């Protein structure tokens, strides 16, 4: 039975089953899980079951689980898959988003570091269900070690008949009837945050600069090399083996129903906690956990016994939870309830009472200035101006008027539909706006008053 409110019912990890993590394992026992160990511990059972089902039944099962994308947007995965047109002669692609560059996010790295086959199994299931014959794992350039681990795991997967000519998905025994060769490659990025945006990612696989494309057409119809393409995050795909093996109902037992009448937040989620807590790290917990519980019970409380001042729910693009929002539940309703953009990657960065929020805003503005791809004027120009203004405010050189100007610039970025191509501008908008609004006094204390000259005519 799906739960209405959060309670901890987890008796073992789902995604971190083979990656020892508190409370079910010791971080010191972590090691790279190879093919043999993966299979011995129940690996590839999901895929084996999937190929006995018709592809559309696999999609139905994923749809029934209401698995929502773990890459930031929370879009229902099964629904996304149904946007694909019917297969024809040409290639159909899967692009795996392993770009993970949102500041404060370090969850996909953990999965690729130690349990690469879990992701490969998810990839194979997705390819089978959606009839996709080529997959590219787009991994960010800075993840040298992880790319290496993946390459090795891929070799094992090919050798053991997961992908390739003799692949499991291709055998006559599979229920789909037709035979096709599924291939999977690692494609390494080269250091640009914007390549995490799904269409910029496609551009980067094609060898171009990472400029997001205007949608529509959506990638499901016209994506990589102009062909139908599905883009999913690493963690999203890692959920698939469990959903197929145990069923959608088992998945829905974890997590919570929506409290505002929206779609539910089922399943577990990797939560990478960073910042001023005693035990930062990546934990796997059920969606819907209140931030306070996460910090106090799982992360050993605030560092040095300090007071909580604020937290970014999951990557800087999401905005900030203020001092009075420590109780916020980390699920997909968070955007509607707490005046932030959304759950994002659910990796809270926590700040204690000594944190200078003006500096936080400046740091985030610098990030966007640096990472804007430059296609859209509000984003390219706005991010630069915003950074300069926030630097001035931080240094105490600004006036009260500048606060309004900064807010005006922030608010004008991305909020008007059709003025920017991708969501980076919205991220900048939400981050700056929520910090400035939720900590207004701090900003005001940093600026000089603006005196408006008034002349009075005496006659």
């Amino acid at each position, binding site marked *: 039975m799906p739960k209405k409110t959060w309670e901890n019912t987890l008796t073992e990890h789902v995604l971190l089953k083979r990656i020892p993590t508190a409370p079910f394992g010791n971080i*010191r026992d972590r090691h790279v899980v190879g093919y043999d160990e993966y299979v011995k511990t129940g690996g590839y059972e999901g895929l084996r079951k999937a190929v006995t089902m018709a592809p559309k039944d696999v999609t139905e099962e994923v749809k029934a689980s209401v698995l929502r994308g773990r890459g930031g947007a929370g879009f229902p995965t099964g629904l996304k898959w149904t946007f694909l047109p019917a297969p024809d002669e040409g290639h159909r692609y899967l692009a795996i988003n392993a770009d*993970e560059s949102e500041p*404060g996010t370090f969850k996909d790295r953990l999965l690729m570091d130690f349990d690469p086959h879990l992701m490969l199994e998810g990839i194979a299931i997705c390819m089978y269900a959606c009839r996709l014959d080529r997959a590219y794992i787009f991994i960010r350039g800075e993840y040298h070690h992880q790319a290496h681990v993946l390459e090795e795991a891929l070799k094992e997967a090919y050798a053991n008949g997961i992908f390739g000519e003799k692949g499991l998905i291709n055998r006559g025994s599979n229920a789909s009837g037709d035979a096709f060769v599924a291939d999977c490659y690692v*494609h390494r990025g*080269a250091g640009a945050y914007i390549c995490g945006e799904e269409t910029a990612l496609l551009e980067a*696989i094609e060898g171009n600069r990472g400029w997001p494309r205007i949608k529509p057409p959506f990638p499901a119809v016209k994506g990589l090399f102009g062909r139908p393409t599905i883009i999913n995050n690493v963690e999203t795909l890692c959920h698939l083996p469990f959903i197929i093996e145990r069923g959608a109902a088992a998945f829905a037992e974890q997590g919570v129903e929506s409290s505002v009448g929206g779609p539910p937040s089922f399943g577990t989620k990797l939560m990478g906690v*960073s910042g001023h807590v005693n035990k930062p790290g990546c934990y796997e917990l059920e969606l819907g956990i209140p931030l306070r519980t996460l910090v106090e019970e799982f992360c050993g409380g605030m560092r040095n016994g300090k007071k909580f001042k604020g937290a970014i729910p999951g990557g800087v693009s999401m905005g900030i939870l203020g001092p009075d929002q420590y109780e916020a539940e980390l699920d997909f309703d968070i955007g509607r309830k707490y005046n932030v953009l959304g759950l994002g990657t659910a990796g809270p960065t926590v700040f204690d009472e000594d944190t200078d929020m003006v500096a936080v805003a400046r740091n985030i503005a610098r990030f966007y200035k640096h990472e804007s791809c430059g296609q859209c004027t509000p984003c390219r120009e706005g991010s630069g101006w915003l950074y300069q203004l926030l630097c001035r405010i931080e240094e105490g050189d600004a006036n009260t008027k500048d606060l309004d100007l900064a807010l005006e610039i922030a608010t004008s970025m991305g909020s008007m539909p059709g003025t920017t191509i991708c969501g980076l501008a919205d991220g900048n908008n939400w981050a700056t706006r929520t910090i400035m609004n939720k900590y207004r006094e701090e900003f005001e204390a940093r600026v000089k008053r603006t005196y408006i000259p008034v002349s009075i005519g005496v006659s």
Partner: protein
Amino acid sequence: MAWITKNSAGMKIERRDEPYLTPAMRDELINTHLPRYEVRKGALFPALHMIQHHYGWIPHQAMLEIAEVLGITPAEVFDTVTFYEEYWTKPKGENLLAVCRSIACEFCDATACTEAIKAKLGIDVGETTPDNKFTLVELECIGSCGTAPAALFNEDLHENLTPQRCVDLIEQIRSGAYQPGGTGAVKDE
């Protein structure tokens, strides 16, 4: 980023007789990477990575060579190279130290680490030491926020840094005692 353009008309390309794209690289590119992509330009990233990894930067002549193998224009190669931070269009020092400056790291004292490195090496961010041993840069989040502050030394990740550990690291590299591998992903307390 990439939209900062400069006039490069009339620029002379330095050339050498020996190709940058060695026969082995050419082979790997044609036999391993090209078949993976539906259009030839898809293999541009792997090609650039090879050159970057081998030489530490991407000389113009190498871009011309890649363009020729892939059958695309040199301008297309240049366009891609200049967009991405990891591709260097100028030579850098033998070793690259890249400290994360994003949110979790800055507020867990990355600035103190960068300052310690700057003082130890006697250079500013973006510069290379006179002996050409080190280039220091700052990066945005490198996915180790839980073990902040973090830095990349070439391809190795170093986590839970302190100013002292940064100084120790540089000394180890200088004396040759450095063991490649970094701190890996396991948190050391």
